[in-house]
Structures are given as C-alpha cells and as structure tokens.
C-alpha cells in the first residue's frame, strides 16, 4: 500500500475583495498517495486552479480566506509558518503553469532559472548545480542542453519553454508535481510529448502528479483517478475509466460528449 502524501479536507476559498464575499471553492476533498497521478478537470472558473494554487501554498493574498485542511506529509500548508512553507515550495512541491510564455523570467538566463530551486534549497556548488541543470534539461528532451542553458526565454519556442519549466520543477525531485494546464497553450503534437514526459517522470521518480486540465482525453491517457469540478464544487470523482465509461453527473456526461472524436 502506497503512503498517503496529500490530504485535503473541506477546503473552502473565499475572495473578500468585493463587498459580498465570493466563494470560489466549496468543500474540496482530495487524497493522493505517493506515485499517483490524479486529474482535476472542469471548465475555466470551476475552481480547479484555485484549489491547486492553495495546495502549492501560493494563495497568500490578504483578501482571501481559506478554511479547511491541506496536509502535506505532516505539515498543514494553510497554517504552517511561511518559512516552513518555503522549505516545501520548489523542494517537495513543485508547480508548472499554463503559460510557458510568461511563466519564465524574461531577463534571466534559462540556466539561472533552472538552478534556482537548488540555490534556495540545497548546498550544491555552482558546478554541481550547473551539471544537474544540464542533466535535467536533457532529461526533459531538450537537445543541445548547453545552448538552452545559456539562452533567454524569448529565444525558445513555447514547447521548449514548457520543457524548461518542467526541468526547473524537477531539478530537485519533488514528491508532488502540480501541473496547472501545462499543455493548454501548446500545439497538439507538443501536448502529447509533454504528457509522455510527465508519465515518464512519474514512473522514474515515483513523483505524484496533480494534473489540471480541461482536456479530458489527456486526462484519460495520463491519470488513474479524476475529479470533476463545476462552479467551485467537486461534482464527481473516481477511477478514470469508471468516470469516463459510466459518468453519473449530467455535467460529466456533457464534458465527455464534448471530446472531439477522430473519424477515419
């Protein structure tokens, strides 16, 4: 039996930047074990990204209220001190974002950005960091890692940048990788490659992945379990094949019906 990695219970997220508070996530529950890939699907505005950001400890705006429990190992992400949270971020929990075009710092070299987590969380020397950065860059399928290492983000394509983001997330092997729509901004062929890369990372390092997407066919090919969100609620969850073959909720049925069928 695999170890429990993440336990989210009754997570509620409210915005207080208007006169009437607006709840964006209601009673979100999630348990993930070591090495598991869980899909989180739903249309935009369904609260899936908010939940993911909360799990990564990135919702710290003062006009937000979060209730519930997010336990990662023996740390409660919601209540632990910032220092403790920082020691997890980029170290045990890493995140990849939707927009590879804007998620990298435009004025810093790729190498510097890939090495960042190692500078923050390890005592590695400059040479060790460099060696590791070149290693992960080639692991994520970037040919000529040396050239990429010395490039700036604007010199790379979208697919390459997303690989760089994954490399940066994997420079220190995290226990949980949160991928927030990592393929949405990419071409279909590149999407498949990124999904393959995530599968490979999961197999090789036993890294758990929380894969957020509105693309159900990608979720089906990658995840073992899936949560369907709508309007801030988890409306359906279960093993991927079960949810796909026997959807209970009307909304899930609609989502599945919306997958384009390839006819030959």
């Amino acid at each position, binding site marked *: 039996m695999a170890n429990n990695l993440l336990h989210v219970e009754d997570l509620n997220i409210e915005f207080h930047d208007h006169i009437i508070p607006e709840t964006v996530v209601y009673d979100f529950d999630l348990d993930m074990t070591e090495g598991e890939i869980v899909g989180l699907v739903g249309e935009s505005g369904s609260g899936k990204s908010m939940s993911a950001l909360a799990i990564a400890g990135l919702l710290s705006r003062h006009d937000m209220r979060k209730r519930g429990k997010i336990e990662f190992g023996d740390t409660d992400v919601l209540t632990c001190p910032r220092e403790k949270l920082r*020691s997890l971020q980029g170290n045990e929990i890493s995140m990849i974002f939707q927009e590879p075009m*804007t998620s990298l710092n435009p004025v*810093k070299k790729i190498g510097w950005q890939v090495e960042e987590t190692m500078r923050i969380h390890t005592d590695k020397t400059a040479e060790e960091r460099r060696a590791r950065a070149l290693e992960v860059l080639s692991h994520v399928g970037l040919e000529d890692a040396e050239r990429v290492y010395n490039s700036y983000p604007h010199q790379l394509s979208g697919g390459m940048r997303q690989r760089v983001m994954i490399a940066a997330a994997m420079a220190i092997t995290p226990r949980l990788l949160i991928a927030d729509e990592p393929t949405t901004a990419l071409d279909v062929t590149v999407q498949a490659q990124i999904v393959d890369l995530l599968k490979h990372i999961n197999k090789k390092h036993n890294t758990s992945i929380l894969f957020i997407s509105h693309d159900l066919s990608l979720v089906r090919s990658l995840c073992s379990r899936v949560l369907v969100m709508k309007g801030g609620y988890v409306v359906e969850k279960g093993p991927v094949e079960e949810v796909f073959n026997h959807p209970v909720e009307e909304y899930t049925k609609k989502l599945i019906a919306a997958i384009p069928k390839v006819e030959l």
Partner: protein
Amino acid sequence: MPTVLKKIISAILTILIVSCLVFLAFSIIPGDPAVAKLGTQATPEKLAALRASMGLDKSVPERFLTWILGVLHGDFGKSYSYSMPVTSLIKDKIPLTLMLTVYSFILMIVLSVVLAVYAAWHENSLIDKILQILNQVIMSIPPFFGGILITLFFGLGLKLFTPGGYVSYHVNFGRFMGYMFFPALAIALPKSAMAFNLLYTSLVEEGKKDYARTAFSRGNKTKDVFYKHLLKNACIPVITFLGMALADMVAGSIVIEQVFGIPGLGRILLTSIQNRDYPVVEAIIVIIAVLVVVSNLLVDILYRVVDPRTRS
C-alpha cells in the same frame, strides 16, 4: 556591434552640431565682449585693438573654424576676462560638478530603489501610503529650494554640516564627501520622487505577472522575489527616465553649487555670462552637451544590458 557604432557616430555628430549652434548663437546675440571688458568710455581705437587681439575682427566662419579645431584638440581658446586659457580655468571645476552629478545620481538610485521596493512589497500598508503622499510633496520641490530647506534643517538646525563650509577634495576627501552629500541630496530628492513613482508602478505591475508566481512557487523569500526577479524587469521602463534625469542633474548641479558655495562650473558659468566671456560659456555648454550625449549613450547601452530581448 554595428548598432552601438551607429549610436556612437550619431553621438559625435550631435556634439558637433551643438558646438556649431552654440558658437553661432554667441556670434549673433548683441553685446560686445570688448566693450564689456573696457567699459563704454573706451576709445574706438582701443576697442578695435582689443577686438583684434581677441580675434573678433575676423569673419564668423573663420573664427568658428579656428575655434572648433582648437576644441578638437581640447583647446577652448582664451578667456576674455581672466586672460588665461579656458581649459586651465575650468579644468579643476569639471571634476567637482561631475562628482556632484554622479553623487546625486547614485543617491537617487539608492533612494528610489530601496523605497519603491519597500512600498511595492508592503502595498496598501500605512508606510506605503505615507511614502506616496511624501512623494507628491518632494516631487514638487525644485532643487534650489530643496537646497535652502536642507541648509536650514540639516545645516543650521541639526548642525550636521556647516553651510558654506566647503572643503576641497584635495584637502580632505572624507569631509568633502560629507559636505557634498547635502547638495547631492537636494538635487536627488525631486528626481528620486519621480523615479520612485515610475519604479513603484512598474514593480506592482511586474508582481502580478506569471513569472513572479513561478518565483514564489520555487520557495523564494519575498525579498528575493523583488530583488532577484522583479527589480530588473521593473527597471526597463525606468531607464529612459534615468537618462533624462542624469542630463538634468548636470544642470541641477550648476544651480545648486550656488546655494552651497561649491566652486564648480556653475559659478564660473554665471559670471562668464555676465562678462560676455564667450569662450568660457561656449566651453561649458559644449561640456554639458557632451555629458548629456554620453548619458543618453549609456542609457542605450544599459537597455541592452538589462533587457536581453533588445539584443540580437
């Protein structure tokens, strides 16, 4: 790098054109340096003789040619009123004005960066709000008035320095820098307020961008997110202002030297204008033009250094 070469060539051309205009302007405006020197009672013969010795009897193009050739060799001619070469007259004063300018510039950068980062970090806090208000006030204080206020407050009130107690850097460099801090502050303050404003807005904007979130997701301290990630990006729109500010500060130095009794270019420029000592005035204007052009050139180069997207 051919673009940099182009910039340098255009900079040299600019300086040449400015020199030409300055010389022409002083040939056209009314007023006779010989009369200014000898007084209105002088006989026409004496005036003619003096004009000849000053080289004023020759035609304008002829005089311009002699002058510009001299300038290219670093010779700005002879001062009318001091009867000595302009170069040796202003040689000791250039570093003074230059130092004051650079001092103010560094002060401006330190003040605006530290405060803008602090305010953007603690956005909407009480200190942020106080800084915003203070900023509006300081921005509207011209340097010469700021200089008077600083003399009054730091000099006469707190006795942190002796007003008018200028110490040459040849005598005591430490005390020189101590004294110069206050005029530099007077020049830097209004510019810092403007730089603060630009940088603050820019930092807040950058903080909303995706890469800032990425930086947090890697476990960066907030301080490092600001200084290592946001600051360099936020500087890009501010660089143009820095170039203009640097040029402005040269002029600001000349004014503020009067307030603080610093024997820089400012004082000699004003007396030379009164005495119609054109060679001195021309030399100082050309020097200021060179400084402005060089600071613009530096801005262009800085852009390339800071923003990799402008290279290649």
